[in-house]
């Protein structure tokens, strides 16, 4: 009886003390940070993404993710700042990138928080730095069918392309083969740029100028050399014979991709930086069809590989009008740490990758630093943001990653190609600063000489060309 009477009292006391203690030790809600991320079909669900959740745990922030559907970052930021939408951080990646100039304009306008620097949190980690930026890929099934060897010089390349054009290597009875295909989107897809490297070092990314490496030397504009002219004449011959894709001067990358990935097997060769830029990762049959070709020797035995020093791109900016600048900085600083960057590049440690004991071989040769169990880069996954956002992956990991054993893995295919080109990279890793006007002038003339709207053998025209830009 006594116990029965006391019971409600005890419960009441417990409720009161519970409420009081709950009030005293009230759990602080995490700060909500609103983050805009460009949509990517390589991320399954940002709300359950492993990396996002890891960042939340690490920073104690609650990340409220908004997906950006626009494709033009400048327009998106214009709309964002003019509307006053409550977004604290904007991330970039893939095709959604912001140039230094575009960023500068937003910073000057006071819309992008600049802190002590540019306001840009960099993305450094998508590819290994300091590498060959253009690789030639050839259809070895066609070589096999036609009993041809992989070309080692420009003369052999011409013979192979001619056989591709005339001997119906895809066996469909139609004259539908494109011996050497290309696209206008980037120099990496323009195969004549690679061919010109068999005549003289040709770096279209840096206005084709070789920087002087000592006081006794002067800059060399390689486009004005006899060797370059000889290379142009060779490319013109290939074009005249129908060996170079006629659509490469105005056709875009989508067109190139469609042609190369076509089940009709219509492309003999193409050039690109990474094979995955052109061949879809989920297409192992097409991937197995193409192998890399080492730099071709020109008539004088010249072989060059185009050097590409990847500049880090913009990974994220902070909205200067945000009321949570400190939280935004905390997030982005965390993303720039090695621990976070390795997740951003390779996924969950212990599940998708781990540090190597050193008994594995890196895909770039040498001892490995990272062993991948599930190589998920450029696949549909939910472990990281597939290159979106800031990161800083040390080179020792980018170059020390091992192969995951999948033959169609593009990083492995690229790594092997890089090893074949490595010995032909230029000695200096300090290229000339690009001059946009000069590049436009030179690129236009290169196109005209190859398509034949100007005659590269015409002395007067050539003289006018090499003095033309100075006028």
């Amino acid at each position, binding site marked *: 009886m006594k116990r029965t009477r006391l019971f409600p009292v005890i419960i009441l006391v417990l409720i009161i003390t519970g409420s009081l203690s709950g009030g005293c030790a009230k759990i602080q809600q995490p700060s909500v940070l609103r983050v805009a991320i460009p949509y990517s079909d390589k991320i399954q669900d940002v709300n359950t993404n492993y990396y996002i959740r890891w960042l939340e745990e690490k920073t104690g922030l609650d990340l409220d993710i908004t997906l950006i559907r626009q494709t033009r970052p400048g327009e998106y930021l214009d709309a964002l700042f003019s509307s006053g939408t409550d977004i604290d951080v904007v991330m970039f990646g893939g095709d959604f990138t912001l140039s230094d100039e575009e960023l500068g304009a937003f910073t000057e306008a006071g819309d992008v928080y600049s802190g002590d620097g540019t306001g840009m949190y960099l993305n450094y980690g998508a590819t290994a730095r300091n590498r060959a930026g253009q690789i030639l890929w050839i259809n070895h099934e066609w070589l096999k069918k036609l009993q041809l060897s992989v070309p080692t010089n420009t003369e052999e390349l011409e013979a192979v392309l001619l056989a591709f054009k005339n001997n119906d290597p895809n066996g469909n009875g139609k004259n539908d083969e494109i011996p050497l295909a290309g696209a206008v989107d980037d120099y990496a897809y323009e195969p004549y740029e690679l061919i010109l490297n068999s005549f003289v070092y040709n770096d279209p990314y840096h206005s084709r100028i070789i920087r002087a490496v000592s006081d006794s030397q002067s800059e060399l504009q390689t486009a004005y050399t006899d060797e370059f002219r000889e290379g142009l004449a060779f490319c013109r011959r290939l074009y005249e014979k129908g060996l170079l894709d006629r659509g490469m001067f105005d056709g875009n990358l989508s067109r190139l991709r469609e042609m190369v990935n076509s089940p009709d097997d219509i492309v003999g060769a193409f050039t690109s930086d990474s094979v995955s830029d052109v061949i879809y990762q989920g297409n192992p049959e097409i991937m197995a069809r193409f192998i890399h070709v080492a730099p071709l020797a020109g008539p004088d035995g010249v072989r060059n590989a185009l050097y590409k020093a990847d500049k880090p791109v913009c990974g994220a900016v902070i909205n200067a009008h945000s009321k949570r600048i400190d939280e935004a900085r905390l997030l982005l600083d965390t993303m720039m740490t090695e621990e976070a960057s390795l997740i951003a590049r390779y996924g969950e440690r212990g599940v998708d990758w781990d540090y190597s004991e050193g008994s594995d071989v890196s895909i770039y040769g040498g001892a490995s630093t990272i062993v991948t169990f599930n190589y998920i880069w450029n696949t549909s996954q939910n472990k990281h943001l597939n290159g979106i956002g800031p990161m800083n992956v040390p080179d020792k990991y980018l170059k020390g990653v*091992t192969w995951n054993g999948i033959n*169609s893995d593009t990083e492995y295919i690229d790594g092997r190609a890089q090893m*074949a080109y490595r010995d032909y990279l230029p000695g200096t890793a300090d290229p000339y600063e690009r001059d946009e006007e000069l590049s436009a002038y030179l690129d236009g003339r290169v196109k005209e000489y190859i398509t034949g709207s100007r005659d590269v053998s015409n002395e007067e025209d050539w003289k006018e060309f090499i003095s033309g830009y100075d006028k």
Partner: protein
Amino acid sequence: MRNRLLKILPALGVLIVATLLAGCGSKTEVHDEWLESARLDADETPEELYTQALKEDVLIVYTVSTRLTEVKESFEREYPGLLVEIRDLRSPNLVSAVEENYQKGGSDCDVVICSDNSGDFKTRLADTGIVTGYVPKDIGKHFKTADNGQEGILSFVYEAEMLFYNSAEYESCPIENIWELTDEKYRNRIYMPNPLRSFSTYTLCTSMFQTESERALENAYRDYYGREYTTDPKRSDGEGTQNSCAALFWSRIAASTVFTNSSDEVVEALSNGNADFGFLVSSKMRFSDIGFSMQPVYKLEPFSGCRTSYSVSLARNSKNINTAKLFIRYLLGGEDGKGEGRKPFDTLGTWSARDDAPDGNPVALEDIDLIIPDQDFIIKQDWTEEFWTRLLVKN
């Protein structure tokens, strides 16, 4: 109470062991529902299988050979309406992937094509019943070796993990004895895949420790150095190696070798002049057709490599059993061995396992100086991973 517990303990123990065995995928019960419905002993014509296969989903093939992509393409042409997805993996990754798929209860795999000499395939997939054999009766009788110790799982082609030389550099093989590879002049001029990541290279490395191989290696040592091989008590190659002649050989080779991820990289190194010699899988010989400068070493004292084979099997729980059976028939070349499915394997460096379908190799497999791996021996060598890890880290 204590007595009752004692009485039920043995029964509990049996139950626990049985549960654990079942959990481990041990092949304790072969007459399961899947196996019965698969009708692996049935006499079925390709036409009957095709009719049934049209009701099934995309066939998923896990393979270590890129040539399966060619088989897929011709199979899909031959049997319109059937689709095949190829997952091309390195052997250790393939075994793990198939095992994981099975353990998760998935059916994301129908046909498995794998190097079957290292012991991993046998112990982890065949002995556990994760894969099972399918040998069509009318075709199986034509195979030279119908049983390679894996309960009817068919080795459908033979290859070799063997030495090649750079044929742009040398008109003929510049060495006659395998110990010549340890000469200083070949330092960093030998390439080979990492044996811990390539089943066929692992098989070569481990089969050299077989008793007969050891004796042959010792004799070759005497022939080359002019003195008997003796165990140096000061030398230690690690536990399990017993400071044998093979351990000495691999220790010296590891110090002179550039290790790669795959045979393809060895082919490229031979062809671009970075390598004088390379150990690689013989099927890559086909790349000499498109100008890669490498030639196999058929004759070498005491051996140039070891024989390897590739098996084809069905993944247990395959939901596309008719398509899988039809695909395996097709891959084996059909009843007469002349079908398109065999053609991608009818290349230099791949030897036919059929007695009615000759291959086009200039030298018969039997005429090459090769070790025949003893799989039971290889499986027992549990020290090799540590041995190779040490050598790889050191070098």
